[in-house]
């Protein structure tokens, strides 16, 4: 008798919990955003601010841009996609996972050299990366945007052959690349200039010479085809490109416009676009 009634009681409780959960989720309107880690600090603040102002909850998924897109594709859900670089948005558009007409550009990224705080090996320029004994890290060029940019920069500067022996590792994601210098595991990486502002006490950026900046990256956002709240999603994107959103980007030292970004490069440096990885990398 004890066993049977216990079983009945627990199954009733389970059903009650399930009902409660379902009910709860319908009550508050929310957005689900898949974000490449490159904009983590800004998106977190923006989400909180947006929720305070509109009452719409923004659920953020962070991870590598490619992994985020995979999840979006596999699970067939999500309202917004904000990758860490433009090439992933191109891929998303090719795979028809986002609505191209909703794409807006949020901010701009400039590639640079990053070193551990204190710059122990006194790296001042791209050429210094070729010094014997220097340990350099880049992101996997075939999988991560900032890695591809790194290779392009090295090839264009003609330093690929000299720096390559010093490259001791490929990190598998953007944030892992930053982690390499934050932990001091390598002497330098080729990453984004904004890495320094993620962890100012651990990472320092050493700017490239303006002509060495191969291209300027930008961070786009677009509404996913699986979104059931397209209007709300657009609202959030507008928020991000609007004054409040841009103020947050500026606060975290991202570049708000192409012109600002070009200050570290040449006036005609390309923004975004694609580049093919040469064989052998």
């Amino acid at each position: 008798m004890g066993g049977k009634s216990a079983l009945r009681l627990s199954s009733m409780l389970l059903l009650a919990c399930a009902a409660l959960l379902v009910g709860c989720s319908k009550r508050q309107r929310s957005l689900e955003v898949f974000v490449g880690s490159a904009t983590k600090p800004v998106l977190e603040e923006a989400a909180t601010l947006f929720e305070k102002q509109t009452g719409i909850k923004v659920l953020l998924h962070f991870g590598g841009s490619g992994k985020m897109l995979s999840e979006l594709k596999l699970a067939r859900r999500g309202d917004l996609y904000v990758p860490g670089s433009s090439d992933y948005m191109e891929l998303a558009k090719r795979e028809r996972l986002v609505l191209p007409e909703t794409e807006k550009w949020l901010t701009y990224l400039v590639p640079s050299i990053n070193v551990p705080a204190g710059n122990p090996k006194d790296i001042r320029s791209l050429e210094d990366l070729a010094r014997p004994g220097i340990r350099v890290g880049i992101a996997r060029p075939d999988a991560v945007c900032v890695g591809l940019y790194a290779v392009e920069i090295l090839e264009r500067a003609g330093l690929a052959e000299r720096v390559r022996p010093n490259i001791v590792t490929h990190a598998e994601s953007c944030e892992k690349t930053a982690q390499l210098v934050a932990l001091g595991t390598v002497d330098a990486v080729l990453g984004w200039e904004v890495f320094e502002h993620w962890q100012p006490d651990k990472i320092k950026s050493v700017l490239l010479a303006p002509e060495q900046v191969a291209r300027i990256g930008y961070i786009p956002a677009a509404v996913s085809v699986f979104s059931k709240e397209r209007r709300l999603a657009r609202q959030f994107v507008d928020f991000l490109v609007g004054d409040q959103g841009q103020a947050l980007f500026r606060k975290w030292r991202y570049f708000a416009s192409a012109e600002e970004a070009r200050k570290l490069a040449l006036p005609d440096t390309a923004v975004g676009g694609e580049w093919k990885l040469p064989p052998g990398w």
Partner: protein
Amino acid sequence: MRNWFEGALLLAVGGSVSLMAFLLAAQLAYTGPFAPFAVLGQSDVQQSIRLSLLTTTVASLLALAMALPTGYALARWEFPGRAAIECLMVVPAIMSPMALGVALILMFRSGPGQWVDEHVVRFVFEIPGMILAQFFVAFALEVLVLRATFSSQSPRLEHVARLLGCTHFQAFRRVSLPLARNGILAAFVLGWARAIGDFGATSTIAGAVRGKTETMPVSIYLSLATVSLDRAVALSILLTVVSLLGYLAVHLVLRPRST
């Protein structure tokens, strides 16, 4: 089925089997049954498999070599603080793999660790580092199993063996060790399985350099990172098959004995 208890057991077994079957079926349905074989033909995939198998087996064996005496000592000796030490041993198993990887990097970043990394063996971003990471996760599991195995043996068997003329080591070798055979097997298989699937710890300390430190789990991750989902799922099925074959190999070759 005579009563509700046996019915519940049946449900549990049936449920578990169904869940496992669904997992595999869902993957196969996505890629089709031939995709894993197609992917197996690629040389970088073969390299990745070879690397995974090599590092995992070496790491698990090394872990076993250390877990065996450790588990035995923990089971036989009584000393104050034994429970605390056991908890310490288990830490790598309960730590988040990523955290373990970071801890390993920090270990080699300064002090004696750095000296070893620079002058003795390079661990960071090298294969020894991968083996080390896998060693840690395998060891923690293996020591748990082996300690339980040796605890379940009556100490009297060793006492009698010693009174029949064996030194402590001989008693261990002739009595305790043979009796622990099944436990040793289980420990090794568990450690091996955990190590071959590890991603967080190995990728953090060894990076993800194609052809050098790219294990199967890293390949799967990178496929997801490039949104090559078919390849990711195919590799995942392949990893499952490879692990299964490894498990079967250990069991068929070293048949567990029923005592």
